């Protein structure tokens, strides 16, 4: 099995895109580097042959910053198989009232939330590897 593609939207206007990006980097760089990799979403949307070849028919997990689901939609349109799709606000309930930072930098609470999102993604990876989904 090739590496699972974990792709964030990296939205730039608000903190949610940065939370998506940082949580994915924690998974691909630290938590599950041998089972996962990420791809530039902006490259995916160009539809270049090179990136289509990397993603078409591949198992993907997406983490979006909002309900526009840009990462999920773009990955699906390029032929990736999105088996798990999340958006950052889905897990906000336990974090109401916290200040997570901006699109530039996360606060300590922001990093804790990113870590929690990364754990959710790492669990997805484990499930997929175990063939449970």
């Amino acid at each position, binding site marked *: 099995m090739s590496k699972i593609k974990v*792709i*964030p*939207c*990296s*939205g*730039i*206007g608000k903190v949610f*895109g*940065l939370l998506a*990006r*940082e949580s*994915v*980097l*924690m998974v*691909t*760089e630290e938590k599950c580097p041998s089972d996962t990799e*990420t*791809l*530039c*979403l*902006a*490259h995916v*949307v*160009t539809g*270049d042959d090179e990136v289509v070849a990397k993603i078409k028919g591949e198992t993907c997990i997406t983490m979006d*910053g909002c309900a*526009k*689901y*840009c*990462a999920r*939609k*773009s990955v699906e*349109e390029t032929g990736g198989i999105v088996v798990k799709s999340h958006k950052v606000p889905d897990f906000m309930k336990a974090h109401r009232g916290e200040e997570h930072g*901006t*699109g*530039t*930098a*996360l606060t300590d609470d922001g*990093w804790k939330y990113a870590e929690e999102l990364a754990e959710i993604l790492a669990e997805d990876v484990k499930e997929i590897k175990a063939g449970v989904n």
Partner: protein
Amino acid sequence: MITNKIGVISCSGEECLGGTISRLAVRKMMEELKPGMVSTLCLPLFIAGDGGEREFAEKYPTIAVDGCSKCCAKRAIEKYSNKVAGSVDVAEIIGEVKALEKPLSTRNVTDEHMEYVNKTAAKTCEIFDDILIKSI
């Protein structure tokens, strides 16, 4: 058409250092160098959006800030919206080899990385000011 704002859009590439630099340079433009004068948009929204986002580069003269010489932001904007008014390639500023290094978390940004961000933002600013001058 020149409005009171100029679009600055980053590729935010996730696969390499250049993408983090392009993203931070655009944030620096928004927050420090040209506050209130920059209009930005999440790049993937050009394609996935259904609320007229593709008209963005028709409404605003737009500068693309790309993390490497693949220039995905520039190409995506031109494919889905309009010709860009200017573009910046981080690889031309810090070198292709550096730009293609491992992706960088904002937790691990060093003074050297901030130097790259500052240079990229300064180049973007130059183009920004040129567009402004031409619009007067």
